[in-house]
């Protein structure tokens, strides 16, 4: 089996995310990291391999600016065998549909048996790249999968949907986004971190990846940002730092009594 894992570079959780008011795009300066949700996808690939299913290759794939190379090193340190980086200014500002199309073009060249993704990107939060990629590749797909068993040429997947837990059998090749409850990602060993830069990393321009430039980038995207505004103002809540817990509890009780909640 060959597995491709889609990974993304996102602003570090500790960095305040903000929008560039001029372009409506995310301000991508500041510390960046591998999207934490994607570490679950890499771990899921590793567990398939370690679970006895022969996995010839795990390939990490990203689309992003130059700095995203570090994210690929991280993905490799967590278990990927090599990585592919689509890096091209022409891709900047692509919406979900365009991003999914571009990633699908690269994946087509790799022809994996299984494509794994994270449940969401920490910055974009679209939850949908998997469904877009699958449609372009004409593969079956599920998102938010929290249990996945390989059964010869198919996967048995479980996930929570609107009405409870669903179990779905999915034939390979397939595109699966994994939920964060699927596993506990490992920490990379020091050796793996040191060795990551030596593993093959292929950098492709959009043209080299077979991406039609008319279908990507901000101007070609079907969903177009026109404005950004503050959310409706809600008066801020009262915040208590717990120092003396007895005192804190008295304050909570007074608050409850004032509102006749007790």
């Amino acid at each position, binding site marked *: 089996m060959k597995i491709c894992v889609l990974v993304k570079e996102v602003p570090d959780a500790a960095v305040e995310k903000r929008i560039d008011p001029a372009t409506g795009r995310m301000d991508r300066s500041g510390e960046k990291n591998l999207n934490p949700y994607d570490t679950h996808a890499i771990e899921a690939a590793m567990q398939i391999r370690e679970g006895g299913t022969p996995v010839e290759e795990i390939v990490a794939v990203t689309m992003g600016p130059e700095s995203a190379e570090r994210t690929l090193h991280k993905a490799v340190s967590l278990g990927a065998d090599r990585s592919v980086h689509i890096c091209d200014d022409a891709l900047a500002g692509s919406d979900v549909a365009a991003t999914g199309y571009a990633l699908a073009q690269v994946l087509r060249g790799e022809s994996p048996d299984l494509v794994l993704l994270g449940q969401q990107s920490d910055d974009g939060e679209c939850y*949908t790249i998997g469904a877009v990629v699958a449609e372009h590749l004409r593969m079956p797909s599920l998102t938010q999968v929290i249990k996945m068993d390989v059964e010869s040429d198919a996967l048995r997947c479980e996930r929570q949907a609107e009405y409870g*837990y669903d179990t*779905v059998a999915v034939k390979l090749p397939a595109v699966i986004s994994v939920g964060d*409850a699927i596993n506990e990602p490992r920490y990379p060993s020091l050796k793996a971190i040191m060795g990551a830069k030596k593993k093959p990393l292929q950098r492709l321009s959009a043209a080299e990846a077979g991406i039609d430039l008319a279908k990507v980038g901000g101007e070609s995207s079907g969903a177009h*940002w*026109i404005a950004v505004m503050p959310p409706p103002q809600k008066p801020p809540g009262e915040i208590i730092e*717990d120092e003396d*817990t007895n005192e804190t509890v008295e304050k909570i009780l007074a608050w409850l009594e004032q509102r006749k*909640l007790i």
Partner: protein
Amino acid sequence: MSNILVYALHYEGQINKNSLGAVSEGARLAAELGGEAHALLVGDQAGEELAGPLGAYGAKKALIASGPEGLAQPVVDAMAKAITDGGYKYALFGGGLLGFEIGAGLAARLGAGVVMEVTGVRVQEGKLIAQRPILGDSAISEIEFRSPVGIVIGRLNAFEAKESGAGAAAVQRIDYELSAHAQQATMVKRGEQRGADVDIEGADIIVAGGRGLGKPEGFQLCEDLAAAFGGNAAVAATRAVVDAGWYPYAAQIGQTGKTVSPKLYLAAGISGAIQHKVGMQSSENIIAINKDSNAPIFEFCDLGIVGDLNKIVPKLTEAVKARRGA
């Protein structure tokens, strides 16, 4: 004329509440655009008696396509066919998991722009503009469509179901071809309820626990506090801990769980992710106990306690008991 096609999810003979909201919203927008809202149902269980009443929510027509239920890709096939044949300008979805998957697949199929987590839609110069909160709801972006078809996926509970009093929708069966890849996934078991069947929807006071409880036994703290409040108090949970098997699915609040609006919602060890927030934000009073002062829940609670729940909750339980006993 701009018509809107709304996906109507149904299960066990009932239309999903969020789909009813989406139909109502679609009808409102279509009227402004000078067009009609139509609903589409997929499934072998979908018939006239389910589809017709959508007229009361504003759907002029209800299309029914047979096919497997609970999976997104067959619906993409049916909706793509309906949109191509019917010349719809927009597709609209209520909140939920399937809506996200179908909307995204449809965007890829039709080369359409898609916006998700939409909390509001307005009409400007004969076109829809979608409003989507971003960056943990700290800003709202406005999005227009430059594609022939625009796809709007609502946030859970964003659109209110409103009966407009109109009569039944004209029901029409449609044919479409199930694509090869849509046949590669099959439902083995749907809607499994994991854990006990607890009732939280009628509760006046809800004590909710999340991953911050540390271990399944941590829920005892929530149960003790709920018991101390007495009367109509219940315990609820986040998806993180339900998926981990710490607490029953029936007690889950949020996008793929229940929506509640009790008099008091006390969240212990819950970060306040959007998918949780959508299920409890209309609670009358929200108290949050979290040790991380940057937790998103502090952005929308009424009283926030920054501290360790293991220290605070037991003492709070004792104090509530004492006060009520007195």
